């Protein structure tokens, strides 16, 4: 139910709906786009960034929130751990139970390795489960892996590494086959072909989906599959808090923290796969986020302290349409498809201000501009946003369309007595995706031997901007590659487990006279609810 002042402003939205429908907003030329981005996109806000003072990437630019994470000591005192006596031993240790982690575990297991998977929350609770829109893969007739490659490189402003992008797009079709064999029910057309939809920034229809709940339906099946392979040991509510290395600096295990018993679990492994996802819950530059509760960037901290190189952590994706009202839904995503179908973005004066089909970064920048220039709408708790006029779609495609096409969205708002058929939504850009991460090669290995990374935690693929649907693809592709390559290390001699990398890191922090009260990895953000 909307509050009084919002209902008042909403009348204006209704009044201007008809005239807005006739309006054609141009796509901005490159120069105008650049100007808009550099003035209003958070990635260009100089005050949001600083140069890292420690570690392999010293001197590189990143946001304060990530720098704070890295220029810090651990939250834990590890002295009580007996490193001679690991609690568990395995060939492959997978950290993270989202799409990338489960995939890596399944492949490492099929390759004959003994696998342990440890995750922070319940298995599957992740960003993957929340992915609505779909997954890219070049399967349609008028598409090709090369076209997919070109789209990805251009979207990433040529900052993605071409060998990684090639690996991703080239494996796309075979990863779809793997998912189909597991019983994933991608939408089909009348002829039984995989249905492909067009997405912003792509020259061919390439999005595969399962209704408007793609990630959920894939995760349900991956969870079911891993549950049916009892040899894979699964540890829930046991986040990784540090990696261990041997005398050569190679990774050979991790320290987990059992959240229930409140004690450490030392795991020794011949190789480790970090798949703990992104960092939306760090609320970079104060933004609301679409990410799950566990997305606190732990992978970056763990890998960086162990000496792994990072790449591209000066670029994040802000999804234009995050909810700002009601309060308990703040940050939650409204799918892109709503804009693709023609919903307008409307300011407090009842005007459209940007062609809604521009890329995510441009639309987000335009929304921020409106709000900073006083043309946003204020909610009772003091947040600002612009209207996303959903009833336009209902009028265009007929009554009942929204409810039928977007049952999840419809239901979500019906629960709070907002009918998206008749009332617009209030939205503001929401922190959505970590474009960079820990640098990997085509096998998924980092610059630290025997340490692999897959999924959103990895860097080097998406450059400065990720194409919609490429993330779901990359987690399966690199989950598989990392799982298979890690399994091949099962004849390794892992050596003695130590924290000497951490000692070195602490020395560097101290010698730079960095003192900090921040403790990391963060594991969970402390939410101070209340006023």
């Amino acid at each position, binding site marked *: 139910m909307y509050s009084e002042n919002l209902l008042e402003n909403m009348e204006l939205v209704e009044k201007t709906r008809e005239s807005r429908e006739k309006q054609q907003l141009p796509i901005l030329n490159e120069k105008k786009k650049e100007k808009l981005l550099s003035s209003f996109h958070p990635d260009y806000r100089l005050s949001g960034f600083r140069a890292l003072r420690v570690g392999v990437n010293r001197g590189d630019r990143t946001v304060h929130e990530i720098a704070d994470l890295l220029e810090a000591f651990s939250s834990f005192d590890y002295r009580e751990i007996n490193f001679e006596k690991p609690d568990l031993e395995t060939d492959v240790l997978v950290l993270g139970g989202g799409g990338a982690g489960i995939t890596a575990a399944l492949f490492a297991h099929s390759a004959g390795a003994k696998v342990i998977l440890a995750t922070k*929350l*319940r298995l599957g*609770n*992740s960003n993957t*489960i*929340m992915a609505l829109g779909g997954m890219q893969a*070049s*399967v*349609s*007739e008028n598409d*090709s*892996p*090369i076209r997919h*490659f*070109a789209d990805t*490189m*251009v979207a990433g402003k*040529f900052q993605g590494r*071409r*060998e990684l992008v*090639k690996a991703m797009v*080239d494996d796309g*079709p075979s990863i779809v*086959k793997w998912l*189909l*064999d*597991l*019983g*994933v*029910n991608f939408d089909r057309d009348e*002829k*039984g*072909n*995989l249905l*492909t939809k067009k997405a912003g920034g792509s020259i*061919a229809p390439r999005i595969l989906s*399962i*209704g408007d*709940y793609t990630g*959920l*339906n894939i995760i*349900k*099946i991956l969870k*079911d*599959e891993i*549950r*049916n*392979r009892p040899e894979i040991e699964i540890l829930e509510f046991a986040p990784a808090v540090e990696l261990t290395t041997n005398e050569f600096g190679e990774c050979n295990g991790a320290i987990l923290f059992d959240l229930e018993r409140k004690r450490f679990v030392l795991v020794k492994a011949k190789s480790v796969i970090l798949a703990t996802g992104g960092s939306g819950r760090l609320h970079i530059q104060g933004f609301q986020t*679409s990410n*799950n*509760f566990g997305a606190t960037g732990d992978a970056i901290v763990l890998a960086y302290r162990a000496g792994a190189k990072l790449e591209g952590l000066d670029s994040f994706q802000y999804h234009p349409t995050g909810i700002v009202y009601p309060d*308990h839904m703040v940050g*939650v995503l409204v799918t892109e498809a709503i804009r693709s179908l023609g919903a307008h973005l409307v300011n407090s004066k009842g005007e459209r201000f940007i062609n809604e089909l521009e890329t995510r970064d441009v639309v987000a920048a335009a929304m921020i501009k409106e709000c900073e220039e006083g043309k946003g709408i204020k909610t009772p708790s003091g947040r600002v946003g612009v209207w996303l006029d959903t009833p336009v779609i209902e009028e265009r495609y007929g009554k009942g369309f929204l409810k039928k096409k977007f*049952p*999840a969205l419809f*239901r*979500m708002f019906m*629960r709070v007595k907002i009918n998206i058929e008749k009332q617009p939504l209030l939205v503001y850009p929401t922190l959505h995706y970590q474009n960079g991460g820990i640098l990997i090669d085509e096998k998924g290995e980092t610059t630290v031997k025997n340490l692999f990374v897959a999924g959103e935690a990895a860097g080097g693929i998406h450059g400065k901007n990720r194409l919609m649907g490429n993330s779901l693809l990359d987690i399966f592709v690199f989950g598989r590659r990392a799982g298979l390559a890690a399994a091949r290390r099962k004849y390794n001699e892992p050596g003695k487990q130590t924290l000497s990398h951490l000692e070195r890191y602490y020395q560097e922090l101290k010698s730079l006279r960095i003192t900090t009260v921040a403790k990391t990895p963060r594991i969970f953000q402390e*939410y101070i609810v209340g*006023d």
Partner: protein
Amino acid sequence: MSKKLVSIYIEGRKIKVPEGYTVIEALWDTGHDIKRGVGCLSGLCGACAIAYLEKGSKRVRFGLGCQTIVKEGMNITVMPFFPSRTANYIISEMGKPIEKLREIYPELDTCKNCGFCTIACPEWINVSKVMKLLKEGKYEEATEMMLDCILCGLCASRCPYGIAPQFISLFVQRAISHEKPFPENLKKRLKEIEEMKYDEEWGRILQMSDEELVEFCKRIREEA
């Protein structure tokens, strides 16, 4: 800004929290270390199942803790891990998995279509009807209805016969998708890749200078 407070009962304890909070927020606000029953905070992951009784109401209701706003006098308990039976099988190794449905989940036929599960579902799925369709062999229709299921387990918690509809339908969903004819468009693309149709071009791409690569990508996109 000071907000109006409401009194609620959480697992029997009376506490006051600001109006407008969700059950999860109320739990955090009162110092509960809630980790087990939380995940996406978006109503998508099913980790936060709750049961609650509203003041003056005669009936216990069910919902998601991250989506339910507390109300004066509400009596709430969290129940994220309700035990539900899951069968063991490896779909990819079964010839025609759907034929094994009754072997794998014999409890399907003990369902009496009483409808208790439907009442609990926070996704407004007519779970009882799904069960009926499954019994009748209308698998497509049944699993289509379950696409929005978030595996919260609330339906299973209500079933007087201890059936877990969410897992039975998940098996069926996997079984029938697995048996669908392989899509032609994907088959073609896989064949092309197998025959190394793109390898030469990849070779060139990997050799290009940065400028050449930019030009190349531009051209590919314009041709399309």
